[in-house]
């Protein structure tokens, strides 16, 4: 492994250790803030599977995220906790099903059409949820009790506790990261890389590329669903904004700014963007102006993302 890759690896390891140690010294506000960032990082990693690994630029990735969140809301009773496994199954199931249906339609297009139709379907879901009073309409609905895990009367952890939730999210984030690394190196991952580089040649070599893209789309949707479940459980609130294209757009920003096609890039991007938001919000009410300017300048001057600074080379 070359020196630059090694230094990035070490940095990530250091980051992981810092994250693991943080709740021992941090305030509750920051524990919750970092939990949110970790959930965003998972969400961003799921989009990177589409954008960075396979070259499918989706502007509608908020769809499975938001639907999974709403699924948790729907299966959570008014005053009780939903079971973790059962609610996860529901959220991931809805995310996968929605991604399957949408994927069958949108993967018939490519390039700029693909960007536009994913955006459009995302908006369709947004309007459906926004206009449905039984789903809470534009205000959304609350989730009063976080999901709970109970094994024969024993509760190994309590998600109502911020620190427990933090470690739960951290574990899942590491899990998603590891999953993507394994995927990247697997035969499936190599097909995705080939599709991104030269889909035509892949077909000519005998690969039925459509089904691989569809599988990728569904998988990415499920991972986004996982992030959606976590976001809903953590915030205790689901609203249509979780399905908005602003959500999708922000997410794309994180992936691109952090560096695409690398497992760590989205994490860096999520951290950077959330940190920037926090900073800008502290300066002015009109912080989106600064964020927008930052994005424009980044694209013009640092095109390959922040991890470019480490010159991480993808192994061919």
């Amino acid at each position, binding site marked *: 492994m070359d020196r630059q890759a090694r230094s990035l690896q070490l940095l990530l390891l250091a980051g992981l250790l810092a994250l693991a140690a943080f709740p021992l010294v941090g305030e509750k506000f920051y524990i919750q803030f970092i939990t949110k960032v970790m959930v965003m990082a998972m969400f961003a990693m799921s989009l990177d599977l589409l954008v960075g690994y396979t070259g499918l630029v989706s502007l509608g990735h908020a769809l499975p995220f938001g639907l999974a969140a709403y699924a948790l809301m729907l299966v959570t009773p008014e005053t009780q906790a939903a079971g973790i496994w059962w609610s996860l199954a529901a959220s991931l199931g809805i995310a996968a099903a929605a991604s399957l249906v949408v994927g069958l339609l949108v993967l018939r297009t490519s390039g700029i059409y693909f960007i536009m139709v994913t955006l459009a379907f995302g908006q369709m879901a947004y309007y459906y949820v926004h206009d449905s009073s039984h789903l809470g309409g534009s205000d959304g609905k609350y989730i009063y009790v976080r999901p709970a895990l109970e094994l024969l009367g024993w509760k190994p952890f309590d998600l109502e506790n911020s620190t427990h939730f933090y470690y739960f999210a951290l574990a899942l984030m590491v899990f998603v990261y590891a999953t993507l690394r*394994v*995927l990247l*190196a*697997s*035969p*499936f*991952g*190599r*097909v995705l*890389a*080939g599709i991104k*580089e*030269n889909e*035509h*040649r892949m*077909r*000519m*070599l*005998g*690969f*039925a*590329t459509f089904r*691989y893209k569809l*599988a990728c789309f569904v998988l990415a949707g499920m991972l986004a669903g996982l992030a959606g479940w976590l976001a809903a459980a953590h915030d205790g609130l689901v609203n249509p904004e979780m399905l908005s294209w602003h959500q999708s757009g922000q997410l794309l920003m994180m992936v691109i700014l952090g560096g695409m096609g690398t497992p760590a890039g989205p994490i860096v991007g999520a951290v950077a963007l959330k940190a920037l938001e926090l900073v800008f919000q502290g300066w002015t009410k009109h912080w989106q102006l600064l964020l927008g300017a930052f994005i424009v300048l980044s694209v013009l001057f640092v095109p390959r993302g922040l991890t470019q600074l480490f010159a991480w080379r*993808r192994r*061919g």
Partner: protein
Amino acid sequence: MAEPLLRTENLRRDFGGLTAVASVSLECHAGRVHAVIGPNGAGKTTLINLLSGELAPSAGRIEILGREATGLPAHRVSQLGVGRSFQRTNIFMSFTAFENCRLAAQSRLPSSMRFLRPAARYRELNEAAERALDLCDLGSQKSSIAAALSHGERRQLEVAMTLATRPRLLLLDEPLAGMGAEESARMVELLRKLAPGHGMLLVEHDMDAVFALADTLTVMVDGAVLASGSPAAVRANAEVQKAYLGETGD
């Protein structure tokens, strides 16, 4: 003679009002090289696109290895045992030469929906890639990024990738395109080495290569077959001389 690897019957392809390929019937046999020549715009590349499945014929039939292949999409044609190389180099530029061939070999796995074991650990794929690279004299370059290879080496890689899929029939579209004298000679040697083990349909402009390799020669002009037969017979054909060979004098 044994079953032909490839057989077309009155193959035709129209683009709106233009007929690019009109009523082409030809055959390819194992161990034989069938060269297709003709001036630019004769429909040679369209023909290859029809055979490889990139284009669907407007009329006519294609039979590959005894199976009905008319209108099959490209990836299905490939899985029948057909390898196609491109006139304009069509490889994975950011992958190493080895990875290019390894991925090509991976296409022969029953399915690539495998998510756990790293692809690099599939020994049979690594061996297939090595074999293909060695056959094409690229063994020493296997760790080079494709974009860093010379034009001639990339053309060789183009062929190596095709070989890594273990095809029985090779459709080669101007493999010598853009090559200098030395590189061309090497490529001709490679093709000569490959000929006995495969059936080969070769589209080329380089007449020296064509006459050195071809067992059967077909001349196409304006989408139709002008003459077809042994190279000597075709060369002596008056019409062919008038329409093509005499003028270009390659």
